[in-house]
C-alpha cells in the first residue's frame, strides 16, 4: 500500500482551498456587480423613459466626446 505523505497533502489542501475560495469570491463579486448595475441602469432608464438603444446612443456620444477631448 502506498504511503501517504501527510505533510505534502496538507500543503496541497491549503493551496487548493485558497484557490477555490479565490475563484468563488472573484466570480461571486463579478456576477453580483453585473446584476446590481443592470438593475440600477434599468431603474434609471425606466424613470426617464429611455430605452436601451437610446441609452446606448447617449453612451456612445459620451465616449466620443471623451475621445475628442484627448485630441484637443
Amino acid at each position: 500500500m502506498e504511503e501517504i505523505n501527510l505533510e505534502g497533502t496538507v500543503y496541497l489542501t491549503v493551496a487548493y482551498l485558497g484557490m477555490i475560495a479565490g475563484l468563488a469570491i472573484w466570480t461571486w463579486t463579478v456576477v453580483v456587480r453585473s446584476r446590481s448595475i443592470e438593475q440600477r441602469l434599468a431603474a434609471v432608464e425606466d424613470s426617464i423613459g429611455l430605452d436601451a438603444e437610446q441609452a446606448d446612443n447617449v453612451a456612445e456620444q459620451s465616449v466620443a466626446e471623451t475621445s475628442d477631448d484627448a485630441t484637443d
Partner: protein
Amino acid sequence: MRGRVPEMLLGVGFLGIMTTLYLGLNWAPSVSINAFESPAAQRIFYWHVPSAWAAFIAFGVLFVGSALWFFKRSPMGWRLHVAGTEASLACGLMAVWSGCVWGAAEWGTPWDWTDVRLNTFGLLTLLALFLVLGRQSQPDGVETRDTFSTFGLFGFVLVPLTYIATRIWQIRHPGPVIAAGDDSGSLQSEMSLVLLIGALSFTVFIIGHMLISMRITHLEQRLESVQKSLDGGN
C-alpha cells in the same frame, strides 16, 4: 440567451476546473518519490500551470486593449484593458499563491528572489494589481486611461521575458514540461490529458470572466452618461 453567454462560459469553465481537480487528485499518476521532496504537493501543478496559462491570455488581452485605446481611442479597447487587468490579477494571484505553497513544500521556501521566472511573473501580477487599484482610485478620463494603457503596453515586455526565463536562467523554477523542444520535458499521457483539460477549462472560465467584466464597464459607461443627461450635462 445570447446575453447570458458569459455566465454559461463561467459555469462550463468552473465545471471543467472542478473536473481537473478531481482527475488531478484521483486519476493522474503519482510522480517518483525519488525525484521530488514532496510528491503529493506536486499535484498543485494541475491548477498552477493552467492558471498561469490563463494569466498569460489575460495579459495578452490587456496588451491588445491598451494598444487599441492608446492608438485608436477605441471604447472596446478600454473595455478589453479593464477586463484584462482584472483577469490578469486573479489568475496571476492564483499562480503565485499555488507556486508559493508548492515552493514551501518542495524547496523549503515559498519564494526565491534570485529566480528570474518567479520575479518577472511576480512583477506582472503586481502590475495588474497596480492597474486595478489605480483605476478604482482615479476618476475616469482620457488622461487616466492613457496613463494606465501605457503601463499595459510597456508592462507586456515582461511576458516574453517570463516565458523564456526558465529556458535561459533555470535557477529554482522547473524548466518547461511541455513544448520543451526535446525529450527532457515529456509528460505521461494521463498527466498531459489532465493538464490539457485544466488549460481548456481555465481558458473558457477566463473568457467568461472577461466578457462579464466588459459588460460591466459598458453598463457603467451607459449609467454615467444617462446620469449626465439627467443632470442636463450630456
